[in-house]
């Protein structure tokens, strides 16, 4: 019995440590985002990679990293079974990617129709 309690105590300390570490990571990432969003270094704004500035890539990648930590550590996805993890994450990631791709391609196409001068839209 004494052994069990000691074991649980140890587990709880590890869990708390994990929580505060993740909080630290999330805070640092947010601060980095805000600093970059405030300064907007011209190199990051002007350099493009796959038709988007690398500043925006940075924001999006940092956001996905934050999402990973929230889901894995705070929502305990890391302790769930492999099956549950895949059911939730794969489904979500696939459908969201599909949705985004199709809508952004359409949006860019409509912008092109506007700017190519088929329609007067500033009068």
């Amino acid at each position: 019995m004494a052994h069990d309690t000691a074991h649980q105590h140890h587990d709880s300390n590890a869990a708390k440590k994990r929580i505060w570490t993740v909080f630290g990571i999330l805070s640092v990432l947010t601060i980095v985002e805000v600093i970059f969003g405030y300064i907007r270094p011209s190199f990051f704004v002007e350099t493009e990679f796959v038709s988007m500035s690398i500043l925006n890539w940075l924001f999006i990648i940092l956001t996905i990293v934050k999402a990973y930590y929230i889901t894995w550590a705070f929502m305990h996805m890391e302790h769930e079974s492999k099956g549950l993890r895949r059911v939730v994450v794969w489904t979500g990631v696939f459908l969201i990617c599909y949705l985004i791709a199709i809508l952004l391609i359409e949006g860019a196409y409509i912008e092109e129709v506007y700017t190519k001068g088929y329609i007067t839209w500033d009068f």
Partner: protein
Amino acid sequence: MDNTAVAKTGTEGRLWGGGKQPLKASYGKLMMWFFILSDALTFSGFLAAYGFSRFKFSSEWPIADEVFNHFPFLHGTDAPMFYVALMTFILIFSSVTMVLAVDAGHQMKKDKVVTYMALTILGGLIFVGSQAWEWSNFIKGEYGAVEMRSGKILQFVDANGDRIALEKVAMGEQESLRERQTESEGIWYMDEKALPSVTLDQVKTGFAAQNDLRVRTMKLNEDGEKTILDRETSLDYLNNRGIGIIEGANMTKNEYGAPLFADFFFFITGFHGFHVFSGVVILCIIFFNVLLGTYEKRGSYEMVEKVGLYWHFVDLVWVFVFTFFYLV
């Protein structure tokens, strides 16, 4: 009895062979995960629609740093995004207290669960309050703009390119000094929207008299800044294309630029705020159940864990809203 049993399937012992719980989660937790998944798809639908509209108007979308630059008690200073960043921290921190409450629940420590849940509720309330403040600033507006025939807007700047409010541009007497028609005073219960504080004629007069003023259009130049027209073109645009005054924002018009910008702002942050609000309500219910000792008697604090999942999801969505609405 024996002959009612199913013949051996040959899959005994396999994970998905039946008689096992492959996902190792209770029904309630599983359903919370599936709810979160579907809700995540709803939110990504909204954000993708926002992306669609932004791509469609990519050459004239409002600049978020110019719109969301208020900070409480620092009136008039330009503080882009700092307030939203603060809100993000409040929400992340309430997520931390929530996960601490779940952790305390695992150890059956009722008092700690109570403390941490109370802190989480407090964080949620502060966040909803901050969002209300953000909304009120957005609706009220700061500088005002002139609407053109095409539905696009003109904003005013001085020689340095700094924004000038309509009241400072406007000059001369207000021609028609009439009162706003309200339902209680008007004929046949008709009313109208709030009247602008200045008239278009006053703005035109004032603009003609002050030589250093320019207008800027919604169009973004190569540096990602709004195009400032020269003096002649400014006068031409204002006098020949201007049809009205826009102050603040509503669902159809706003002084920031594309009308869709305000629509998406209201819709996405509103839907998220509604989630935070309902999260606070659910947290309160669970909180009182904890106080009453319901889960102590039940021998499991899994309910705290389930509401925790929802609360973290709200935080997760905000991380994305923050990026796509304020940063990108």
